[in-house]
């Protein structure tokens, strides 16, 4: 049996973690859930009801934004994976020693600045009077200034850029642990490049791929700054709806309902992703 001393140290060790989870994660979410089921009948009377959720389904703007945010987040995650995989492969398998450290650093450096600064950096490049527009004109490929900001492509560029590191790190970790000869064995037994990638490399890297995708997807789905700044007025990201309800319209009940729905969506998609790839959360995160 455990002695009282070990039990005490266990409790002491767990306390910060439990405080963190209970006070900062579980309590606020429970509170939010409670608020989302309240219906304000007049300025001082509340009753229970599903009105907020009914609003979401009856107001097409809400659920269209909801679906659009989900689809674009999935697309962004997929694109991030496509871009991050070769980078991770290079860092894990081809680069050695110093080059490896430098490449990792290069991926990390953008994160020394805040998301706001990074996003404004992209805006300086993409805007009508920005660098890319000036180059296009200087090269004679365009007659006038080109506006590259304030469209979905710009939003996705920004989101991919923000997510890249979180995809590269888990990929490098898993690819790093792959036995040197597996790829050679794949070729030796008659496989071409695509076969080796599909049958040998990707199955091996699956835990890293899934964990990177989960993190990037959640970051993207919940991001607010990048879609707002780079997408402009019409960007319609679901987090903006939540912001509007809470801050602009003081409709906390509606905001809370939308927040709960977003949480539900991200949990659902992560669960589906894990089921689809046959991974378990424990394997992916551990």
């Amino acid at each position, binding site marked *: 049996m455990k002695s009282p001393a070990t039990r005490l140290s266990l409790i002491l060790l767990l306390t910060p973690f439990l405080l963190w989870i209970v006070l900062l994660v579980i309590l606020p979410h429970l509170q939010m859930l409670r608020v989302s089921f309240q219906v304000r009948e007049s300025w001082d009377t509340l009753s229970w009801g599903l009105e907020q959720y009914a609003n979401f389904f009856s107001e097409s703007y809400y659920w269209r934004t909801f679906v659009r945010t989900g689809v674009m987040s999935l697309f962004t995650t997929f694109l991030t994976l496509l871009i991050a995989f070769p980078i991770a492969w290079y860092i894990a398998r081809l680069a050695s020693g110093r080059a490896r450290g430098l490449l990792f650093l290069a991926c990390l450096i953008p994160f020394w600045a805040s998301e706001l600064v990074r996003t404004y950096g992209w805006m300086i490049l993409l805007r009508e009077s920005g660098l890319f527009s000036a180059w296009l004109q200087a090269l004679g490929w365009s007659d006038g200034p080109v506006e590259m900001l304030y469209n979905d492509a710009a939003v996705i560029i920004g989101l991919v850029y923000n997510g890249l590191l979180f995809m590269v790190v888990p990929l490098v970790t898993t690819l790093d642990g792959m036995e040197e000869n597996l790829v*050679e*064995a794949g070729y*030796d037994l008659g*496989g071409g490049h695509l076969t080796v990638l599909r049958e040998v490399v990707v199955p091996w890297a699956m835990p890293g791929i899934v964990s990177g995708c989960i993190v990037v997807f959640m970051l993207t789905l919940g991001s607010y700054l990048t879609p707002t700044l780079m997408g402009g007025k019409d960007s319609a990201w679901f987090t903006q709806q939540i912001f509007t309800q809470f801050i602009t319209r003081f409709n906390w009940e509606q905001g809370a309902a939308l927040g709960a729905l977003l949480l539900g969506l991200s949990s659902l998609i992560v669960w589906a992703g894990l089921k689809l790839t046959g991974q378990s959360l424990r394997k992916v995160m551990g």
Partner: protein
Amino acid sequence: MATPSDLFCHQLIRRFGNHPAVDGISLDVPAGTFFSILGPSGCGKTTLLRLLAGFDRPDEGDIYIRGERMNRVPPNHRPVNMVFQHLALFPTMSVGDNIAYGLKRQRVPAARRRQRVEQVLEQVGLPGLSGRMPSELSGGQRQRVALARCLVLEPTLLLLDEPLGALDLKLREQMKVELKHLQKQFGTTFVYITHDQSEAMVMSDQVAVMKDGRFDQVAAPEELYREPATAFVAGFVGDNNRLRGQVVSVSGDRAQLRLTGGAIVEGRLAAPLEPGASADLYVRPESLVLSDGEVAEGLSRCRASVRTTLFDGANSRVETDIGGEPVFARLPQHGSAPSLSAGDSLQLAWEPDRARVFGAATP
């Protein structure tokens, strides 16, 4: 040539920077034989194997497999498969999928594939294990799966890169014999590299002893053991004793040496030497006869003092001292050996034909 050999290489050279890892290797492996390349680590044998598999390209020279030039053919189009040192079984696939991987690439239909997998698993002695994952198998079983994965493709040439290295001693002994049987059973040409001379000797039809990127000698195991062509082969293949001295006289292929301790001994010359040259005489522990009195006429003899006896069953030896150099002799365990204790003086004798004399390497 009527039928081209399964593997023919001509003057292969592969350099890394200025260092030639493979330095002018030519070899010819007839179909259906077990060919081993034996050498210490760093001698270039793995580099050579990777050239044959196609993972690396030679800087000079040609590789022919069944008469077809392979220099520019990528590994997935060569009729060659490799068993890797750490096996490299695909950990995400079951045993059956591991074996079927190559068949799938050859577009063998699924039903036929399943049949072939079961068949080859039976041949390597693992029937019914196709549903297991590699991580659920023992070391010896994994070994067999790695072999089956290659053999099912019926390659012209099977390359093996020290695959027994990771097994424990007992299993290794067992797999040695089994590999030899499998090779005979499948009739595939095996090219096996190892630093373990016992593996090479037991299994091979031909052994090439490799040193510093070159072949010192290519011969059948017995010839390698009895007639080593160089001092390196004599010292590397099997246990051997080396006695340093100077040639005092030569008659025919016999040479007499004066050892540093003053004794005169006799052995057979591996290459012509002039009197006065410094030379090494190699004599195997089992060629030495122990006696404390008279020995038969015609034997070369030498006095030695006992350092210690090493009991190891049938492998028991006595360590003696001749002029400060250790000399081991086999200690027969059928009761004929005299009882020995440290400090005893005894006489070692040997048939001069059983000892080989090489010119001493210039220091």
